[in-house]
């Protein structure tokens, strides 16, 4: 089969930005934490956009995936640290558990939520998120509201030195890799049958069915992919990096809202959008926290309202319109 490389041109600017970020963080002293934070937001934006951007469904409970990813890593490290011989494989077991848990919740949500549209879908997703959180707390699963702490286990397996390396460097690098993967998958989907099917579903689901599109299948593909990527981000950026997990910290709708803000700022359904949105959002949040500590939310809320109203296409949406018909067009989607 012939592979059409031109289809992947839009990845060039995306990867250029990620590489620049990485190099800046790596070589400029003191910037690594900031860059890691930005990568986290970009990765979440990219992952969330695969579902929301392509299907038009607003998954307001997306944070469930991130949270379960975190629990997957926590469980992996906590339980498999009994077998120190596994070494670095423990982290991969953690990632597998993250994927497993997010798949379970995706099945739960897909069964009900993908049949519903609009308001009901948004509410159903929030419901599942809260239901899981309070079930974990109420039934005292995985430590209940006391959560799980596993720094000790991590050092027992890897030694303090390596454990510090893992949590402060490799967890962040992994987030970069996940973000890059998400961007690639996004382009791949957009350029294949899946993308056509999802566009049709987004615009008119019933007409899509009659055209021969198995709507459940394609929605599930997008939903699962998006959920898996979210879980991987959670496993690395929270699970491995923080070495603790509390239900009240991870099942927080605010993070879903951050995803939406990032994607909307950058441009829904675009490839470059989540990256641009992630940078703008992450940087301004960081900056506000320095100059006006404690006031971030008070300032952010009205800004978000204004931007959404005045600027619903997002940065890349506007750029896309500008470059239409020029040579830059094929690099920006």
């Amino acid at each position, binding site marked *: 089969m012939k592979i059409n490389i031109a289809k992947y041109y839009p990845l060039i600017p995306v990867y250029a930005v990620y590489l620049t970020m990485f190099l800046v963080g790596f070589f400029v002293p003191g910037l690594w934490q900031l860059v890691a934070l930005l990568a986290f937001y970009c990765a979440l934006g990219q992952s969330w956009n695969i579902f*929301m951007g392509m299907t*038009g469904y*607003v998954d*307001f409970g997306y944070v469930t995936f991130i949270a379960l990813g975190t629990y997957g890593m926590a469980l992996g490290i906590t339980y498999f640290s009994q077998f120190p011989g596994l070494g670095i494989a423990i982290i991969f077991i953690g990632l597998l558990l993250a994927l497993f848990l997010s798949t379970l919740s995706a099945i739960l949500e897909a*069964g*009900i*939520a993908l*049949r*519903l549209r*609009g*308001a*009901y879908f*948004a*509410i*159903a997703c*929030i*419901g*599942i998120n*809260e*239901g*899981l*959180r*309070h*079930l974990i*707390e*109420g*039934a*005292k699963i995985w430590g*209940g*509201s006391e959560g799980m702490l596993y720094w000790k286990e991590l050092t027992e397996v890897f030694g303090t030195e390596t454990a510090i390396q893992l949590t402060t460097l490799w967890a962040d690098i992994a987030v970069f890799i996940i973000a890059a993967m998400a961007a690639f998958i996004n382009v791949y989907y957009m350029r294949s049958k899946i993308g056509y099917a999802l566009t049709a579903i987004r615009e008119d689901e019933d007409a899509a069915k009659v055209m021969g599109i198995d709507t459940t299948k394609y929605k599930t593909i997008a939903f699962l992919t998006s959920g898996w990527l979210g879980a991987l981000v959670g496993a690395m950026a929270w699970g491995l990096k923080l070495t603790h997990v509390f239900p009240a910290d991870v099942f927080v*709708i605010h993070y879903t*809202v951050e995803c*939406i*803000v990032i994607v*909307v700022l950058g441009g*829904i359904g675009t490839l470059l959008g989540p990256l641009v949105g992630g940078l703008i959002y992450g940087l301004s949040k960081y900056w506000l926290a320095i100059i006006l500590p404690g*006031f971030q*939310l*008070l300032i*952010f*809320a*009205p800004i*978000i*309202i204004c931007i*959404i*109203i005045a600027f*619903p296409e997002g940065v890349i949406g506007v750029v896309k319109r500008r470059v239409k018909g020029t040579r830059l067009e094929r690099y920006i989607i």
Partner: protein
Amino acid sequence: MILELLAGNLIHGLLLGCVYGLSTMGLSLIFGVLKVINVGHGPFIMVGAFVTLAMVTIFGTAPPVAIPAALVVGMALGFAFFYTVMRRLIKAPEFTTLLVTFAIGILLQEVVKFTFGAEYRGYNWEVGKIILTITTIPMTKVYASIGSIIIALLLYLWFNKTRIGTAVRAVVEDSEGARVCGVNVDRIYALSFAIAIGLTVMSGVFLTMFIPVGINPYMGGVYTLKAFVIAVLGGLTSPYGAFFAGLIFGLIENGAYVLFAQIPGVAPFSLTVSLAFWMLFLLLLIKPTGLLGAK
């Protein structure tokens, strides 16, 4: 013994259910008229609680005096948010309305936080109690639920007996149809939004009369979520559906708590909250349009 406990708690649940019902009517009204889910619903309830707190602690009045004050504050907020923000979002895609209403909620929380501080507060209002064999009911709870019922009834009369109220129903059904009948649809949008917010803020007053402690800027979140469950149970677009669903929800919540408390080794409070969401889950699985919905 457990049956007595259960029966006692169900009485409390029924009383609280009235307040829940009232607190959700605004959410349903906004969804019916504007087709917008107000994700910032809970913070408006919180505003009601702070209005009560201010009236009681600063002006030294009895809590019920806060009811008209809450209505005024709520409607003022409603009109303000409608004309600055919501008006521009009437035909906007869903994620923008979700995001914007959420941001409004955050804004309210932060403003209240910077005005009143973040700590937990409460007030004291003693007006006697009814002592039954199975339970003791403070009169404040009785007043709160009676007040909720009265306001729900007034709303019902407004909807069905007044010209403007009928116009609101017409807009819910078909806004274009209402427009060609000469209804000033934009004003109906504004008015309904303001009334809905007014109702929500008022329900905050009744809620503090029911539970006069734990008033803080972030108390609203949990009520947003409860309101979602209740609204779906009630059919999402029907304020009366929401009221009756509130009763059901209050009963289940209080009943379940008693039962969960019998299970050793669990946190019954969290489990009760969780149950509410599994109920929502099941409901959406079986009958997405809600139990009490029109169709």
